[in-house]
């Protein structure tokens, strides 16, 4: 993996972003900004709106008010990877078939699927049906999807959920590599993440609505 920047300069800003679900306001008037090589960690208790905020940033849920994107209103949001609670893998397709599908549909701009599987520690399970994977292994398969297509913005929802200790280190390593290449990431997590360069890390604390 190369450590040089591969993404163009990107500046993303949220201004007065309020979002929620089912008419209930969860996060009120958020402001933050993010540049190449930076990570924003979302922290807060269960129900504080971390997942909702990530879905809003991904454009799946419309915000109540405010906007997120490049400061220039006409520019579109860069390509992004969303990695949610659900792993989007099909139990009846093999591990490699699942990953190859996403590589083709998202554009095979990153590693080859086999190399990505080796990277996340599923290299020897490529022929297995994804339905037989454990929760942690399914998670690793979902993370491999981030590697097969190069996209500057990663939105990660509990990336370390169900992962063992080496899995936590894997997430940290993948994230550090992504940032080194000039990527941006926003991650909701309860686990501590320590990156080699702590200055690239900022934290946004979400409080639970009263």
């Amino acid at each position: 993996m190369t450590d040089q920047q591969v993404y163009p300069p990107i500046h993303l800003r949220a201004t007065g972003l309020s979002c929620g679900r089912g008419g209930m306001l969860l996060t009120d008037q958020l402001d933050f900004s993010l540049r190449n090589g930076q990570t924003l960690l979302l922290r807060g208790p269960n129900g504080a709106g971390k997942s909702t905020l990530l879905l809003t940033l991904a454009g799946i849920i419309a915000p109540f008010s405010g906007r997120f994107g490049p400061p220039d209103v006409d520019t579109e949001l860069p390509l992004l990877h969303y990695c949610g609670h659900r792993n989007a893998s099909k139990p009846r397709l093999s591990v490699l078939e699942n990953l190859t599908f996403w590589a083709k549909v998202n554009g095979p701009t990153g590693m080859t699927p086999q190399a990505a599987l080796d990277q996340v520690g599923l290299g020897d399970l490529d022929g297995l049906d994804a339905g037989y994977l454990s929760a942690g292994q399914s998670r690793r398969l979902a993370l491999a999807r981030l590697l097969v297509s190069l996209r500057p913005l990663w939105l990660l929802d509990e990336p370390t959920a169900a992962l063992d200790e080496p899995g936590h280190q894997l997430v940290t390593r993948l994230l550090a590599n992504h940032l080194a290449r000039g990527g941006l990431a926003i991650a909701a997590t309860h686990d501590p993440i320590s990156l080699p360069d702590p200055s690239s890390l900022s934290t946004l604390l979400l409080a639970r609505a009263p």
Partner: protein
Amino acid sequence: MSAFLAMLQRELRLALRGGGDVLTLMLFFVIVGAIVPFAVGPDQTLLASIAPGIVWIAAFLAMLLGLERLFRPDHEDGSLILLRHAELPLSAAIAAKLIAHWLVTALPLLLASPILALLLAMDLASFWRTLISLSLGTPALAAFGTIGAAVTVPIRHGGLIAPILIAPLSVPVLIFGVGAITSPQSGAAALFLAALSLMAVALAPFVAAFAIRSAED
């Protein structure tokens, strides 16, 4: 193009590895047609005269069975969110789904239709017309079904709403489908059926993509 083919391949693999889904569909189609002689009595001339209608109703009902499979699994495992962000446009992904849906629900019905023709005492000439009518009309049913499934996918347990939603849209298909078999101007009816299918198939992916994009997860 390779992304489109990958999508098509995935849909077909999922459907064919589904363990007998296709066979169930064919059996359902044949059984719906086969119970009619028991209900209306063994009058051969009556059966032959209502056979085109029965075949089309059986095909319509059988194609409703596959609708749940179209978007629901992708919605539940999070794939649909990712498809919205894929490089392949969502409408192209849905077009691939529509083609796969036709291949695994309508094509088996065409293959099973000789059995039904036999059970309903159809003569050979009207069987050929039935085959042509079904192949021209089922793409429209698949397209309307895709729209119905896309609109109802965010509704939990919305499985029964899609058929109700698309029934009115399917009425012209049934009218001209049966017309292409029985009416004196069967050629004109067949042409209209083909036009209906072409229009529906061309527009459905965009309508369905719009429905999915405007739905909140």
